[in-house]
């Protein structure tokens, strides 16, 4: 397990997202109503990019821009087809005013 700094917490206000690269893997970090979530930036349907899709902070979901699968940010599970397998989620927290990501 390693800890990575994403940004200062004020740089990711509510309703915003940011894609970071950790050890060559892309991870999407989301601020939905003050809660932080992080999931891998890869749709489990066809391995395309996921986090750049529509982010709905109220529903706490992100929608794959390629075929429309809607992923729950807290569990990583798809709520709609064509994806059916969950994507990886990561621990994310605020330490000393900075957003920290825990990656295996």
């Amino acid at each position, binding site marked *: 397990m390693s800890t990575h700094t994403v940004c200062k917490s004020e740089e990711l206000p509510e309703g915003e997202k940011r894609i970071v690269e950790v050890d060559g893997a892309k991870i999407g970090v989301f601020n939905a109503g003050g809660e932080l979530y992080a999931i891998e930036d890869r749709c489990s349907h066809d391995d395309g990019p996921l986090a750049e899709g529509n982010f709905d902070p109220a529903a706490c979901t992100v*929608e794959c*821009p*390629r*075929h*429309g*699968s*809607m992923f729950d940010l807290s569990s990583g599970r798809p*709520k*709609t*087809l*064509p994806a*059916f*397998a969950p994507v990886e989620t990561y621990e994310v927290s605020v330490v000393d005013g900075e957003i920290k990501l825990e990656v295996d």
Partner: protein
Amino acid sequence: MNPPETATAATESELDPKLAEREAIKDINSDYATKFGFNDPETGYVYKAPKGLSRKLVEDISEYKDEPQWMREFRLKALDHFLSRPVPQWGADLNQIDFDDIHYFVRASEKAEHSWDDVPDDIKNTFDKLGIPEAERDFLAGVGAQYESEVVYHQVNEKLEAQGVQFMDMDTALREHEDVIREHFATVIPENDNMLAALNSAVWSGGSFVYVPKGVKVDMPLQAYFRINTENMGQFERTLIIADEDSDVHYIEGCTAPVYSTDSLHSAVVELIARPGARIRYTTVQNWSQNVFNLVTKRATAAERATVEWVDCNLGSKVTMKYPSIYLLGEEAHGEILSIAFAGEGQHQDAGGKIIHAAPKTTSSIFAKSISKDGGRSTYRGLLEVAKGAEQVRSKVVCDALLLDEQSRSDTYPTIRIDESDANVGHEASVSKIGEEQLFYLQSHGLDEEEASKMIVNGFIEPVVKELPMEYAVELNRLIELQMEGSIG
């Protein structure tokens, strides 16, 4: 005293099955143009949108239907997806479709009636000619009849209604069961799943909503019939079927259209949800006229112990691209796809099916049969996927193609992806021609060449046809015989 002449003839044909069969075949000698290809006047139409697709048109449809804001936003989002996507360059040639030369919304009647007597005369006559009210009386549990963009008649038998079965057109379902529709609509096929699903999502109108409560078995089939009447028409119905736990339902759809020299477009979205232990069978007898592009997205989910079956018969249309799919999401779910495609002159049937095993102990089969003649082209395109974690899966894929002459063409694109080592998957494929030997053998038993060819074709598709309800099996055999007329010599 001698009985009247007509009574004598009827008795003779009843006594002699061969004579009866010949009479039946004689009857279907009339071509598609006479039997299905007629068109009716458009007098009395309530609204016909001008040709072309725009943001305003989508807003108008939504406003016209007095829809909730979320549906209007859903449509507009889908329109953006459609406009930003390129026309697919795989499969059939879709570049010939002029999306600006289509009427996207045509309302022929004010509302869906519950009695045929209330349906406007021209429309009622059409469905009378197609035999729908008669079929409803004889062997169906419910009927929906869509004419142009909207459903003009809908009825379900009282016994089923009392058991809580919901069967209504999708526009009514959105008004009366908005919460259920909002929860399930586009969860199986999202609006940006593909370009045609996006188009449907933007301009959808009509289609069926079916809900079968827990434990209810619907003995007789429910049927929807889709009819395009006007020229350069786009029909975009939307169907959602939810079979609750341990329920059972069979839904049948049929379709025809007039013969025109310009093209029409049919692009439906069909979503099926089979909850634990439920069974859904969805049968299609597609017989569009040969000026219709038929580009349909059909997908089902099957929870644990559930079964979904697609029985898909494609006879008509200019171009069909349709691959019904089943996601086996729960343990011991089962999926079956039976597909027949018949491609005659000028037709391209690009059909097949997809099954995704996403849970352990799931089973499936795909049987696809295609027949090509007079330069027609048939394509089998399929996917069988066994996902990681789906252990002890069993599946069989069989695709057979029959070519009736040298000019016709058949292609097979089977994709199989397996991520578990203990999957038991079988795949067979064959391409054959009607052999001189087979023809000679049958002719030596007294059949002429055309009869012999029909018999071989009927034998070829028999495994699929036997799965249809009797009335449809007879109709399908007749349609295929009709397609076969004059194919020899």
